[in-house]
């Protein structure tokens, strides 16, 4: 049974059609890439899945649960984690707090227990501190737990964002341009890393990326968007040779 199914999803910004007839069928454990020129509607798709925007038409289902109409925190609590194209950390908070905040839905204590620091408070806080430090350890950020997030170097901020998304304990992870601003060497490491977290955390991953090396290297299936329309879908080899895709990326006719 598919983990995520999007059927005939449309989204308009005013009169502008940002996403037209988007369909997706994501099986558990798959790693699928979405590519397309700037403005193709890739990030909008992520925002529709996570509830930032409400789809104008169509249906998005996570297993049996309809996601359209749910708020972002409800969808996130259904174990959908994401990162952002331009890093959106809680910049003035500590590295540890960034990860701890993402545990919100998993922490089980009532407001009263929080106000009085009684009952389940201590046990739960201890648990999420330990889990946060474990995640930071995996991302080699543990020694920076007390550091303010904005003081971290760019690469570490990227890693912290993924760590924060994993703190949600996701089944489905959406990565929005994880390789942005990375050099070829770092991209190689990132590819290995994505494969590794996918195995380790048993994730289904949907990622948006411009770096063809990464997309072609690790994705099992690729979906190409342009102007909100789906141009092509298939395994990397097929996409690389698809005439419509080449046209969208390189333009019509002979180059030169």
């Amino acid at each position, binding site marked *: 049974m598919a983990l995520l199914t999007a059927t005939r999803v449309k989204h308009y910004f005013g009169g502008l059609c940002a996403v037209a007839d988007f369909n997706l069928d994501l099986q558990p454990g798959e790693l699928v890439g979405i590519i397309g020129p700037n403005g193709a509607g890739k990030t909008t798709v992520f925002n529709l899945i996570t509830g930032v925007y409400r789809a104008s038409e169509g249906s998005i289902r996570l297993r049996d649960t309809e996601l359209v109409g749910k708020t972002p925190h409800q969808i996130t609590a259904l174990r959908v984690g994401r990162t952002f194209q331009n890093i959106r950390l809680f910049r003035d908070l500590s590295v540890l707090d960034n990860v701890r*905040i993402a545990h919100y839905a998993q922490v089980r*204590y009532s407001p009263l227990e929080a106000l009085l620091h009684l009952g389940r408070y201590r046990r739960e806080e201890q648990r999420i501190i330990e889990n946060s430090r474990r995640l930071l350890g995996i991302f080699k950020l543990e020694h920076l737990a007390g550091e303010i997030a904005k003081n971290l170097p760019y690469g570490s901020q990227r890693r912290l964002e993924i760590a924060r998304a994993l703190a949600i304990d996701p089944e489905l992870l959406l990565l929005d341009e994880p390789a942005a601003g990375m050099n070829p060497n770092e991209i190689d490491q990132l590819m290995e890393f994505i494969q590794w977290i996918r195995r380790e955390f048993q994730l289904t991953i949907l990622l948006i990326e411009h770096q063809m090396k990464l997309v072609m290297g690790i994705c099992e299936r690729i979906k190409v968007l342009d102007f909100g329309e789906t141009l092509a879908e298939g395994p990397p080899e097929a996409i690389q040779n698809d005439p419509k895709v080449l046209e969208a990326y390189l333009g019509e006719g002979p180059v030169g």
Partner: protein
Amino acid sequence: MGWEWLMAQRWLLPVLVAVGLVLAFAIEYNLFNNEYVREVMMYVGIPEYTLEYTLFNKYVQLVMMYVGINIILTVSLNLVNGYMGEFSLAHAGFMAVGAYTAALLTQKVLPVAVYPGLFPLAVLAGGLMAALLGLIVAVPSFKVRGDYLAIITLAFLMIVKSVIENIDTIGGPRGIPGIKKLTTLPWVFFWTVVSIWVVRNFVYSKYGRGVLSIREDEIASDLMSVNTRRVKFLAFMVSSFFAGVAGGLFAHLLQFISPRVFDIIKTTDVLIMVYLGGIASIGGSILGATVYTVLYEILRPSNFADLVSWLPAVVLDPLNEYFIRHLGVGRMVIMPLLLVLVMLYWPRGIMGLREFRWFIPKRDLEAHHRQPAHGGSHGAAHGH
């Protein structure tokens, strides 16, 4: 170095609270005023007038109680304006609701003349009533932020004031005179400690971290599973609850309340205390409220004259003639000027975004600073 050491002595905080409570009772019941204490003081070398003119002095006690009430107001407003990064102007409105609820209860419902122990119930009711209104103010905060929310909270403050002015049974614009003086130093101390403790607990919980994440990036916060509406409800409720508590205490200290007491100027006073002390800091709120309240009293002409009376006449007389005598008016210039200078040269206030380590739960401190136990495979990466 000394400061670091002091802050590391966490046991000092409960000791200070206990000493403060004992001191509050001792002052309230005049326990110092006996032969033994005087003899001990003489023996240790403390001049007798220190007690006579400071701790026993009714005026000093009054100022101490104002400091406590202002700490409650500042800590609670800081939750919304500092930690959450909104700009609420409604605090005086919540205070008014608490003050009126508590005053009406002690005047008409609760037999406090016979059982003065019922007073905290009235204060609690004032706080709960204010919290209820806080829920209503939280609703627009779901939709709007920043300047727009500030205007909505300002409108709320005006509505509260007008409603009270137009209900004749609670005195209308004349207010409520003859409220019993039930606010005592121990009660103020008690509520101050409770407010600091509860706000601190709130801040260091998942809801408090939710509040901080809303300040940082509300959309990202929602996408990290934070139920932002719930968090805003709670923050506004806790904040307005303690504003109501402060209102109840204030009414039974001043013994007279009217709608005019709770206007925008009152909110502004608390805002100054928040920003002087520093946003998102409990320690800062305590410092800000204390410094502002004490400074405000010192700048009264008579107090200031007393304070510098040790100066030789050749300095004192012209000083008095040209400065101190006009201080009554000057104070209204000096305090806002102080705020301008603070904002220009010290925009984060005394403690902005920092905190006394005493107030940070041990678990948090350790989690932030604990180094990996050993090098291991993960802890090896240092710096970039």
